[in-house]
Structure formats: C-alpha cells, structure tokens
C-alpha cells in the first residue's frame, strides 16, 4: 500500500470540505473494496477521510411512504430491516445474494454503489486498462470477457458494474442524495448515477469531486412479487454472470432490472410493455455486443427471466 495520511471526519460538512481541499483524498467507510484496491496499488489515495463516525447510519420512513437509507447503513442491516424485507424484498434479496456475511457486515450502502468493477484486466496491473490508467487501452476486448458487459460498452471499456444492490435499487426507482462542500444538495435518479464508459471509462459515476452521498431514498412501495435471481459459477460468494431483479404484479406486468450485462444496472422501461420473456429480453438487449466468451448472455437473460416470471405466478 502507498503511504497516506488519515483523518476522522466529525461531520458530513467536515468530510466534504476535506475532500474538496485534497484532490488525492478518498473517503473510507466499510473499506472492503477500497483497501483491496489500495493493496494492489490500483487505488493510491494520499489521504483517507474516515467517515464511519458520521450520523448517516439511519433508515427512516419518508413523508410519502418511502424509505430513506443513510449512506453508512451496513449491507447486513439494510437487508435485514423489517420494512425492506416486507416492502422492498427485491432489495433485501439482491443484497443477500452478494459477497459474504463478513463483507456485508462491513460494506455500506454508498460504498456498495461506489465499488469498482471486478473486470480481471482492471485488477491485473501488468496489463493496459483504460479504467485504471486512462489512455492505455482495453485488454478485455478480445480477451477473456465471459463476465463482462454486452450493453452500453464502448471501444474503450467493456467492464460491468458488479453491484447486486444497485440492480435492486434500479428496479425500485431509487434516488441518490448528495451534498457538496458548499452545502449544495442534489438528488440523482439511480438510472443516471452510474455511467456508460464512452471515451472516459475511468469515471464510473455522476459524482463531482468533493460530492458525498448522504442517503439513498426509495419511493413508496409498489407491491407485487419481489424476486432477485442471480446466475453465477458458484452457488454462493461469486459475482453474477447475469442477474434479474423483478417486481411482478398480479396481472403479470412487471418491472425488471439486470446485473452482469452493463456498466450500470440495466433497465429498459419500454421493454416492460411486452408480456413474454423472449420479447422483453429482446427489447431489453437490443443492440447487444457480445463476443465468443459471453455470447451466451442474451439467451441466459431470456431464460432466467422466463423462470422468474414462472416463479412469480406460483
């Protein structure tokens, strides 16, 4: 690990000011992804701002019947919260399908959104990677891309965003609340939070320098059956090949978001007007760019969706 200085932030304003002051600084909360990347010198912050003592660990009901989840709520606590289990089951299920018990006890809501890709070429520091070292090229294109994206890719990057939680939040139409050092607040729809790589794949999301996530809010519950189906190479503790988050209403209409196919939780609302899995999957993955190793993904999405729709009827 490269040397860094360390401070504990006493307030969100404190943390935002410290972040704005230090271009080389990063916030640390759970640390489960950041420290992993620091050990590999993929992340090399010169200063760490520990935000664990900030009062951002509450889950509160909102006036419109929704839920406001503090940025520091641990993944375990979010998955186990009575209202999340009752009203937002797809989010609970998505969280529980990710990582391990130890990691979920530490990882936070905001940190989960901000985790970096698990593209093997991003992790291999001996090879070029535009996300790790802008302008060096993409080793994944033409490489072993079995786990990588087929939607919203560019000639510079085909990484996926690895979060399951974010896929659950996408199907729930969550919004991300942020604050900056000058006190300016904004809310970002989850659909606009993570970004397609384009020609700047090193920028994962819509946050500006010095901007801090304070909470994620969920709108009032929409009812229906909540399902999260994750397909992976092991039964547990592995990233998704593909995943489907679904909320299906009694009339069979649903909303669907997908993991493992794009640099962001993937959802095409227009496709949800279709009723059978094949039509929904085709409309969702129109224009997919697959390769030899991940050509199975569109069909796997379709079949997984068909299975989810079947389960929702039961």
């Amino acid at each position, binding site marked *: 690990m490269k040397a860094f200085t*360390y401070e504990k932030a006493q307030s969100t304003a404190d943390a935002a000011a410290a972040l704005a002051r230090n271009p080389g600084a990063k916030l640390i909360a759970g640390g489960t992804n950041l420290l*992993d990347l620091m050990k590999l010198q993929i992340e090399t912050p010169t200063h*760490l701002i520990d935000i664990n003592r900030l009062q951002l660990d509450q889950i509160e009901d909102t006036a419109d019947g929704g839920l406001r989840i503090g940025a520091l709520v641990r993944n375990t606590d979010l998955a186990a919260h009575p209202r999340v289990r009752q009203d937002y*089951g797809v989010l609970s299920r998505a969280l*529980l399908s990710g990582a391990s*018990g*130890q990691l979920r*006890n530490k990882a936070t809501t905001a940190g989960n959104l901000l985790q970096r890709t698990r593209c093997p070429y991003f992790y291999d520091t001996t090879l070029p990677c535009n996300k790790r070292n802008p302008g060096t090229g993409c080793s994944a294109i033409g490489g072993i891309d079995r786990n990588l994206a087929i939607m919203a890719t560019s000639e510079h990057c085909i990484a996926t965003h690895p979060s399951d939680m974010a896929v659950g939040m996408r199907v729930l139409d969550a919004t991300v609340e942020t604050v900056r050092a000058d006190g300016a607040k904004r809310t970002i729809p989850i659909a606009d939070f993570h970004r397609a790589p384009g020609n700047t794949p090193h920028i994962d999301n819509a946050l500006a320098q010095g901007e801090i996530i304070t909470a994620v809010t969920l709108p009032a519950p929409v009812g229906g059956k909540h399902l999260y189906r994750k397909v992976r190479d092991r*039964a547990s*503790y592995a990233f998704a090949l593909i995943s489907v988050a679904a909320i299906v209403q009694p009339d069979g209409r649903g909303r669907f978001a997908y993991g493992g196919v794009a640099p962001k939780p993937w959802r095409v609302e227009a496709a949800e007007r279709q009723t059978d899995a094949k039509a929904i999957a085709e409309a969702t993955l129109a224009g997919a760019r697959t390769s030899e190793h991940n050509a199975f993904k569109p069909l796997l999405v379709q079949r997984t969706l068909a299975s989810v729709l079947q389960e929702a009827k039961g």
Partner: protein
Amino acid sequence: MNSVELSINGRTHRLQLDPRTTLLDALREHVHLTGTKKGCDHGQCGACTVMVNDRRINSCLTLAVMHDGDSITTIEGLGRPGQLHPMQAAFVKHDGFQCGYCTPGQICSAVGTLQEIKAGIPSHVSVDITAIQKATPDEIRERMSGNICRCGAYSNILDAIEEVAGVKA
C-alpha cells in the same frame, strides 16, 4: 504514526501504528495474537475473520486506526485450552479441520453465523425473508460461504456448527 486504542479479548491495548496497518496485522504483528490467520489478505478466504463489536468481519480489509475504541474478539478470546468455547469444542469433536489454518476464521465466522440467525437476519437461501430464520444445513452452508477450507473439511465443519446450533446431536 497514529494512536489507536483497541479492546482485544477484554484487554485494552494502546498502539502507535502506521495508518496502513490492517486490523489483521495489528493483531498479529503488534499485539502478537497470531491465532487470527492471514490467508489471501483480500477478503476472499475468511481466514482472518474476527468479531468487532460482536459482528464478524474480515480483519484484513479494515484499518486498525478505523477501530479506535472498538471491542475485538479473536479466536484466543473465545475460549482457552481447558475452557473451550462450545464452537471450539465442537470443531475438535467433529474433526472440523485438517491443516488447521482456516480454523480460527471458520470458528469466529461460525459463532457470528449463529448469532446472525438468532438475530433474525435472513440469507440468500431463506425461502421467506420475513420469517424467523432457522439454523438449517442449507442456511449454515450459505452463511459460511465466505470461509474457504482448502483441505475440504466442510462436511465436518457443518456437523460442528449444527451441533452448537442444537439442530443435530
């Protein structure tokens, strides 16, 4: 160097540490509690699992300075020779290890697993996530998936945990 005060197995330790020191390295190299093991050092194997404020975490993926004032329990704090924690005794009885390297992490994780089930925290394999959870073999397997045993002692590890959970004599 940063100053940090850790309560480890009931004893207070005041340490001066480079901020890069992980909790794992602080335990092993500074407090000389070498029961907690370094396996992958990347949160993938679970050998470094300890309890912090009664929750199991990977001690390799957290900095010691982030735990000022926290209460940490390692394998040495769960029980002692002659006064084993029930989970330690069950691992011995069921031969829940071969080389033993992953065992401290397995045992701390197993203790955390049963606490989490008791606290009603659901898992990926829970059929009804709103129901009270039970320590079934499927639940235990899923919840222990963050602990890898290269010797493959899994079936005996499962037997040991089931016994402590009271689902198997």
